[in-house]
């Protein structure tokens, strides 16, 4: 009981220290504990993100516990509560929907545990309780893609959009950003949700190619995997057209396709870097430093002109 009481007092004091001292008392975070609620344990994008987080935690000497939501926000909400119960020193959260994390976030606030969001933003109410968001500017990615498409097509042409899951925040951002900056001369023939899945994009593209054929001047794929799906369908069709294909992510397959001249460009979104940056931001908050509300990943466009300067992001 004494140990527990001391621990409670310690936790309360350290919470107070964070609240009162502010940036002046930039203490070391070594030996502190962080709970990282990640989207999944094994996934082509999430896994390297987790590895980045682990690397940064090791470098800072903090103890990182990774728990996986398996893409279920309900699971994540429970895990958030239990991380707060553990009285860890900081929480890194990968939000999967708008509201589910609210109870846990409120408890974290009461307990004085700082929370940083990674990759995706949550709802407005939730973000008020989150110290900082670390991830790519996905709306900006849409805007950049619109500009690339406009330049490549000379401002005019018919395109198709291969979008991610309906309702997914990343999908909404990348679509809205693209449509906001799209030149008026560019006409969207169809928008299909291929769920960030190469196989689904392949099936959808077969239909689109059959339907629109040589009308297709450009393809905006909201990630590289879907762009690869389209290229595969195009090759199968034997159709002699060469549309402008844009992707996002900077996957190895996109690098290969750009080198082969099949794809026009992609935007780097390095997962390892995202994980590393998120932990670094969280440790700054834990040490009492002020951080920006949004810590963006730089959006670097990779085309055949500059591809030699970069390594695939994942």
């Amino acid at each position, binding site marked *: 009981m004494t140990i527990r009481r001391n621990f409670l007092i310690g936790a309360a004091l350290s919470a107070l220290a964070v609240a009162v001292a502010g940036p002046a008392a930039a203490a070391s975070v070594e030996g502190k504990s962080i709970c990282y609620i990640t989207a999944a344990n094994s996934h082509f994008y999430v896994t390297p993100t987790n590895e980045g987080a682990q690397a940064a935690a090791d470098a800072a000497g903090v103890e990182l*516990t990774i728990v996986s939501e398996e893409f279920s926000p309900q699971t994540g909400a429970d895990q958030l509560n239990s991380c707060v119960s553990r009285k860890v020193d900081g929480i890194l959260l990968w939000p999967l*929907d708008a509201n589910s994390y609210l109870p846990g976030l409120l408890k974290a606030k009461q307990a004085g545990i700082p929370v940083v969001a990674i990759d995706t933003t949550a709802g407005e109410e939730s973000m008020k309780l989150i110290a900082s968001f670390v991830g790519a500017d996905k709306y900006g990615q849409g805007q950049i893609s619109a500009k690339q498409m406009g330049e490549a097509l000379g401002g005019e042409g018919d395109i198709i959009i291969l979008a991610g899951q309906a309702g997914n925040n990343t999908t909404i951002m990348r679509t809205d950003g693209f449509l906001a900056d799209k030149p008026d001369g560019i006409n969207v023939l169809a928008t299909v949700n291929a769920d960030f899945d190469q196989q689904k994009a392949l099936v959808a593209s077969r239909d689109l190619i059959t339907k629109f054929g040589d009308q297709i001047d450009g393809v905006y794929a909201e990630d590289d995997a879907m762009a690869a799906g389209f290229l595969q369908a195009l090759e199968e069709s034997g159709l002699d057209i060469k549309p402008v294909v844009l992707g996002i992510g900077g996957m190895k397959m996109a690098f290969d396709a750009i080198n082969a001249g099949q794809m026009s460009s992609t935007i780097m979104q390095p997962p390892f870097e995202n994980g590393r940056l998120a932990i670094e931001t969280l440790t700054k908050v834990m040490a009492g430093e002020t951080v920006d509300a949004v810590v963006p990943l730089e959006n670097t466009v990779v085309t055949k002109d500059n591809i030699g300067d970069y390594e695939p992001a994942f």
Partner: protein
Amino acid sequence: MMRLNIGTIGNVVVRYRLLVMLAAVAVFGGWTLDDFLTLTTLQSILDRAAVVGFLALGLTPILIAGQIDLSIGSIMSLAAYATIALQPDLGNVPAAFIGLGVGILAGVVNALAVVVFKVTSLVATLATLLIGASLALLISNGQPASSADPLFGLFLTDNFLAILTPRSVLFIGAALLMFVWLKGTPSGRNLYAVGSSMPAAISAGINVNGYIAGVFVLSGFCAGAAGVIQALSSATGSPIAGSVLLIPAITAVVIGGTRLEGGRGSSLATLGGVVALGALTTLSEYNGVPSYTQAVYTGLILILLITLDRIAGGDEGKTTRTLRSAAVAKQTQQGGTS
């Protein structure tokens, strides 16, 4: 008669399986983690148990009656979505009652399919599982509904008496109530007779169809309650809220000691099963064990427990229980008519 053999030892382990599991979790947790054995850990485990707990509670009488209900996850999703999606039109509280109503209605559909149309419960509820899951996605367009009043249901996860939260109180209360019903009332005891041997129950004059219909409606209600609680405490009505909870619910009930074959089980055992499973999950998460590895442990524990159950000569127990239940049923029946 004391017979000291593997059977008796197995019997002891099986009888106190939940205590053995909880003790193992506590010892291992205390050994590997500095801050595991605290009241807040207990609070967190009990709180997390509430939602899957209601599903498991509904399933307990179903299994005792020798039936199965696979549709509880889908029912929960429908109820969760209704609870949030109807809030703007009906208000927060009426919408929650509609959520419960959705559960009861789905339970009635299951009861009709099993009792009136004589479809095996496995097949009937497999069908309603599929229909319910698709219906939830169709109505919601695949999108979770976010509450415009996210703070309304947050009290459900507030602190209460150090180790509880309002929603864990609801769950524990429901489990105690069900225990009183199952063990303390004639209708509860008759249910065991129905599950042990249907012909015997029929010949004892028990309204078997009535009992089976009743447990399906109860199960629907419990799944509805799980959906409402989940939706309100997360301020989100997800059309897939329950889809991942069917298997954990069944696992918890079986770990508790309720038999899939019917005629045996208890709601307190289910309560223990849910808590033991929750404690194991929490321990694994605290230790950073990946979720897919956790599933392996759960599977191994299931096989171990069921095997011990068999070695311990559970069938012997079942026979005497069957006879006893039938005898009780007969007495009740006679008592009722004379």
